[in-house]
């Protein structure tokens, strides 16, 4: 199970990396892509869109199923990854390299509410039972 220690996580299986400039890079976890299987379609939010925490803002679809991606914290979308839209399988190959979008958080302190790697690991284990 791959859960990098330097990232933050959500209970809905997004990962969040806090960049040096304070923006957040967001993707779905290795565990999430493993559950969904081969990715075939990804839709990311447009830059400039304002998100509230928990808002559905991206869609990842595998051969098997469609799944929503939620905003981990409130903020404004500053970039979306066009490469994963054209090559959705990148998420299967390396879920932590294939980011989906970046946001500028409305309140940088909100990041502290996210799960750390240990807490996320626990969550994944509890879902397996």
């Amino acid at each position: 199970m791959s859960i990098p220690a330097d990232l933050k996580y959500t209970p809905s299986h997004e990962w969040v990396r806090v960049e040096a400039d304070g923006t957040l890079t967001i993707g779905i976890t290795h565990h999430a892509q493993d559950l969904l299987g081969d990715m075939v379609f990804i839709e990311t939010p447009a830059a400039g869109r304002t998100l509230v925490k928990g808002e559905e803002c991206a869609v990842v679809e595998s051969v098997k199923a469609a799944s929503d991606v939620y905003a981990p914290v409130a903020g404004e979308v500053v970039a979306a990854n066009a490469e994963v839209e054209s090559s959705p399988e990148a998420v299967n190959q390396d879920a932590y390299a294939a980011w989906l979008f970046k946001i500028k958080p409305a309140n940088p302190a909100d990041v502290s509410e996210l799960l750390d790697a240990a807490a996320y690991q626990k969550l994944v284990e509890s879902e397996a039972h």
Partner: protein
Amino acid sequence: MLKQTPLNAAHRELGAKMVDFGGWDMPVNYGSQIEEHYAVRKGCGLFDVSHMLSLDIRGANVRAFLRRLVANNVDKLQVSGKALYSCMLNEAGGVIDDLIIYFMDENWFRLVVNAGTADKDLAWMEQCNADWGMGLTLTPRRDLAMIAIQGPDATRVLNEALPGVDGLTASLKPFSAAAMGEMFIARTGYTGENGFEAMVLAKSAPFFWKALMEAGGKPIGLGARDTLRLEAGMNLYGQDMDETTSPLESGLAWTVDLKSERDFIGRKALEASEVTQQLAGLLLLDKGVLRSHQKVLTKNGDGEITSGTFSPTMQQSIALARIPLGIAPGDEVEVDIRDKRLKAKVVKYPFVRNGKVLI
């Protein structure tokens, strides 16, 4: 407690992702579903389909019984080993199940029915057997395992795994079977490729599976089985038709024989019914993935997707949809996906056969 096929341990050893499939513990994939899909289109895939039930019906009246029981005409079966695809209907003309019937001899027909409907089917058939005083013996063959060997390389793989079978694999015609003791090999499948479905005694199944893998067959899970059958334009019971739908509105009119005088169950209801819908193929023109239950908007009214997926062979999303009559191949329709209306084209299916895109 989930039911297990005789190959359960083999799937686990291969690291399969197992799921509850209608009460059976089955492999959904062994890694990548898309790679498994390609393995069948380009080489040879192996499927454990032992969850499906084979059922032997024996007795003097078995042909007469099947004439009344199913919608297709078993009198099309005159050569031993020949197979027939048919629906078994209820009195209202709804589909209880779709099944394959093998004619072995006048006292023995073998049926293969879906896993999820097996108990219901058996109870229905036993009831008919009793009501009609047919005196037949119905024997569920849970002592058999069934393995599908599918793809352009299927004949070579089976020949190599089972030395001595090459004469049979060379002579067996499509949709025919041969029995040798308890071994039963049919040239049938659910992928749109050449291939076989082989039944062996459950205790021989792990050994046979291993021999097929050593000959180059790749294990394929239920995930790829679904994308393969949908590309091949084959119906899935419970999605594309069920007890509430007519075979005439499910793309199965070709399996309903109304030419003969037979009084089969459901015939009166079908003849009295008005057909207003059809099963059509859809090709998504916009980006996204078609899924079952999405609404289809046409100039003649709304319809619904019954099966949808991303087609690995076509690199595009495809679907079967039940839509109003009067909409023809080439017409454009819209599909409601997450509150957006995406464009799709109506096409004649199958989408893919023998590795070739037909659209």
